[in-house]
Structures are given as C-alpha cells and as structure tokens.
C-alpha cells in the first residue's frame, strides 16, 4: 500500500530524520511527538502499592469471616431444628402435600410469576439503579 506524504513525514519525524523546521508540518509534528512523551498530570500516590496490598488483605479476611459466620449460622439453625423436634416431640406430617397435589396449576403459576418478577427486577429496576 502506498504511503501518503503525511505518513511518511510522521515516520521521519519519529525517527528524527526530518530536519526542515521551516516547514510548518514538520514543526507541528515535532511538537506533537515531543508532547506525547510527557508524563500526564495524574500520578498515583507513593503509598499506592501498600494501599492495594491492604485492600487485598482486607478483602480476603472479610470473605473468610463471612464464610465462618455463614457456616456457624447454618450449623446453629440445624441444631435448633433438631432440638425443637426432640424436645417438642414433633412429627412430620406430609398429608398437606397430598392435599396440594390437586393444585399443580396454582403452583406452576406461582413459579412462573416469581421468575417473571425477577426478570422485571433485573431488566428495569437494577439497571436504572446502576445507571443513576
């Protein structure tokens, strides 16, 4: 592919081979190349690396803590359930489910309606919230 004059000039200026500074294009390109190498204003603080490491450590410990509390909660709940059955002398009665077997349509509607509500929530409400 043929190179345009401008492309050729860019390559020459970049390589330091364009010396005709009377030419406006050469002067302008030299200025552009020089300025593009300058460090921008935004500089990270000197403690940036330490801040990242602190965040990683904090994130890991809080996640571990969350798992511990979750596991503890599940164990206590199961213990409570077992104790309740043992001390109250409760027995599981599944006759209610037999009665409900004739209402399959209502259950199916309930599941579909719940899924639909979740879809609406994800599609509109959460989207609007994050965009704002």
């Amino acid at each position, binding site marked *: 592919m043929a190179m345009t004059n*401008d*492309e050729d000039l*860019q390559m020459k200026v970049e390589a330091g081979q364009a010396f005709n500074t009377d030419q*406006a*294009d050469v*002067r*302008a*390109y030299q*200025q*552009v*190349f*020089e*300025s*593009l*190498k*300058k*460090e*921008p*204003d*935004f*500089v*990270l*603080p000197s403690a*940036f*690396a*330490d*801040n*990242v*490491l602190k*965040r*990683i450590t904090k*994130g890991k410990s809080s996640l571990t803590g969350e798992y511990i509390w979750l596991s503890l909660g599940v164990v206590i709940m199961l213990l409570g359930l077992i104790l309740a059955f043992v001390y109250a002398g409760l027995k599981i009665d599944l006759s209610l489910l037999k009665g409900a077997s004739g209402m399959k349509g209502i259950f199916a509607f309930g599941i579909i309606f719940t899924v639909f509500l979740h879809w609406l929530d994800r599609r509109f409400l959460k989207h609007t919230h*994050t*965009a704002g």
Partner: protein
Amino acid sequence: MTDDQALVSRIIGGDRQAFKVLIKQHEKLVAHMIGRLVKNKEEREELCQDVFVKVYDRIGEFNFKSRLSTWIATIAYRQAINFMRKHKMPLTDIPEDDSFSAYFVAGENPESIVSDQDMDGVVSRLVDLLPPQYKVVLTLYHLDGLSYPEIGEATGMPEGTVKNYLFRARSILKEKVKQYLGKEAWP
C-alpha cells in the same frame, strides 16, 4: 526463566512483596490508561486499585504468551471501558473516512486550550478531546512504549486499526498544533 516468570511464580507462591514489586513496575502504565480515559479524579485511584486487585486474583491465569505489561494493559483497558459504559460515557465507533478528522480540525478550540501558554499542556488537552480509541493508542504507544501488536492485543483492535488510529490521531493533533503555532507567530 524470565523476570516476568520468576515474579509471577513468587506471587502465586504467596509472596506479597513480589506483588508489591509488580505494582511498582506497572503502576505508571495503569495510571496512564485510567488517567487518560477517566476524568473523574475521585474515581481514578480506586479504579487503578481495582485493576491491580484483578491482576492479583487472576495472576494464575497468566500464560506467558505475552509480556506481563501487555496482559496488565488489557485488564486496565477493560476496566476503564467498563467504567465508561457504566457511566454512559460516549464510546462510539470512529468513521472509516476522514469525516471525523475534518470535523475535529475545523472545530473551535476551547478557551482553556487557546489561553494555555504551555505547548505540552495544549497537546495534552487536545488529546483529552479525542475519541477514547485514539487516546488509548496514543498513550500506549508514546508513553508506555508498546508495539502495534501489543496494543492490538491489549485493546482487541486489529493491528491495522491500531496503526490507522495512531496515524490519524497524530495527524489531527498536528493540524491543531499548526493552527496554534500560526496564531502564536501572527498574533
């Protein structure tokens, strides 16, 4: 074993100091990318932190097929683009023809640019006005020294597009600087 491999092995082995070394080596690269694309000062540092947290979480996935800096640039670029999308910042495609260049060059310079006495500052402000794709290729090429294929890998752009954007962006800046230098010579 290369320096990158040795460093990554130490990080995977749980060496926090090695990760600190990685951050020190690449924080400028990440700051350049985020600083160029995101103008919200309060969000910039946090976004840079997010990039390195992601790097830490995914370091085991790094396959040494590219330089570590290119891989980190990829994560930084995606982080910045996701942020821009989330905040509804414009990320439109640049037309194939020269219509954008003509429009940009013909446009009036903002007062902040016209009144700036420092030429480096003028160019930097002009870069801020360019589309994000142009800003990214200019930054990665001129400030961070990435090659065309590396920029392509980091941004997902074909190598030809990278070259084209780089050429066009510099050409636009040249025209603007020419206008500025002309005014300086003939006030």
